């Protein structure tokens, strides 16, 4: 499964409760679409750290890195944790 799919599947399963891939666009904003709240975002960060073996630093917790499936994928690629 690609990194993007892993992230999408995690969000769909845990926050949208579906496996219908069309329910979440790659650029859909988690904030604007009311998908995650602050504790949900923390869970996502813990998931990324566990699943991809990275550490998300304070200054990396910004919408540019985390607010959509595509942004997370790009962030992971930059971190080198996507392998």
């Amino acid at each position, binding site marked *: 499964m690609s990194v993007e799919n892993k992230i999408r599947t995690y969000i769909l399963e845990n926050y*949208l409760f*579906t496996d219908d891939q069309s329910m979440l666009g790659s650029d859909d904003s988690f904030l604007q*679409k*009311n998908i*995650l709240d*602050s*504790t*949900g975002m923390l869970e996502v960060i813990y998931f990324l750290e566990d699943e991809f073996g990275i550490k998300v630093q*304070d200054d990396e*917790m910004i919408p540019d890195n985390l607010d959509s499936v595509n942004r997370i994928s790009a962030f992971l690629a930059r971190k080198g944790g996507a392998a």
Partner: protein
Amino acid sequence: MAVACASLPALLLRSVEERPDAVAIVDGNRRVSYAALWGQVSAVAGFLAELEIGKGDRVALFLENSADYVAAYYAILLSGGVVVALNTATKARDIDAWVRHSDARLLIADANHPEYAAILERVDAALPIVALGLNAVSDRNRYTWSQAAATPPAPQHPGDLPEEGLAAIIYTSGTTGNPKGVTLTHGNLSSNTLSILRYLELRPDDSIVNVLPFFYSYGNSILHTHLAAGGRIVLEKSMLYPAQVLNRMAEERVTGFSGVPSTYSILLNRVNLAQYDLSSLRYMTQAGGPMAPADVQRLTSLLPNVRFFVMYGQTEASARLAYLPPEKLFEKLGSIGIAIPGVRIEIRGPDDQELAPNVAGELCAHGRNIMHGYWKDPETTRKVLRDAWLHTGDVAYRDDDGYLYIVGRATDMIKSGAHRISPKEIEEVVLELDGVAETVAVGVPDPMLGQAIKLIVVPKPGSALDSRAIQRHCRDNLANYKIPKLIEFSESLPRTPSGKVQRFKLQ
């Protein structure tokens, strides 16, 4: 004290006159001065007058925290109207239920909100709507915010607002079928605002980064206290990105910060507070449920020069009932403190008599901040308001020095992440599913949220219902924070011989 009778718009106007050029609200890149804010309040009040919305008329607000929210809120009050600020985390069915229950004559809503289209489908087609975020509207009865905010000001003056006049309805923890709207008067809101100002010692040079929603009483009180003090409120949407919030606190050199236990839990567990320049910070406040004493100790050791206020309250009390003076924080760790100025608190037994120290009973409160009742619900009002004393449903005791400690709740209400949630509301929605025979929602301990929601479901014979289908149905119909985190299937529910479900056995 004559000033204690002043309405919120009168308190704002005093700040406008004393500090017209000072910044009142920072909303993204917008820095709105007191004079500009008052200009907008007056214009929107003029617009409401054109719609003939006045004394006692309810106006529903469905807006995230913003400078426009503030202008709309104060304009409604200035017009003599009643603000019905609705929870933007919830879904269209609740919004529609609240708009109808309050008989709102106007809805001011964010057209970019994901629920906006669903709300339009549900609400009465004749309901006038001001849509923020739209440049033009085609329907009759629809207005843009620019239209409303560009109306010539009406001649209203805050001095005309009576203390006993209804000012706000806040919907809290009811069910869709039976909404619970706390009614607050101008006197309730202003007296609580002035009391909080006094114990926090807020001044015109105080400022805050606010992450709490204004539609709840805690956020609402932060808004009103800062505007009454002539201070500055910097808006941040939420704690979703904690580093962003801390950077803003450092950049804006704010003096205050307010949160619920999960806010502080995020700060302690996800960011390194030492990396941020918080040297301007004078105080922090915490309300919305008990915070773990270990978290209080960690936070205060990281920020030793910041005064930390533990506070307690209810929407039914406008916001605040008690606070723990920071100098008593460690001596009385775990206490919610003492009554705030102007409020009396008693711990009472089942016969409504005051109990001796160290004996647990119901925490009851009396003061000018106590609501006048639940909107259109005299029966529930009679249960909680007796002889003008609010019966909070919280079980507490007072120590020998008069400090109060909460030990539990006398009701089944779930408290999750500072949200007060009626289990019935969740059960009502889950029972709509075909395969569910019975269900019960309870709160179970959770390190981050205080309580997480657990649902126990008794399926109908042959039902193929799974957890995910239940959670999806909840997501479609309830605010996200009301979706059960844990779901268990069971053949039956534990009951008393008389048939009552024993919720405590499921927690």
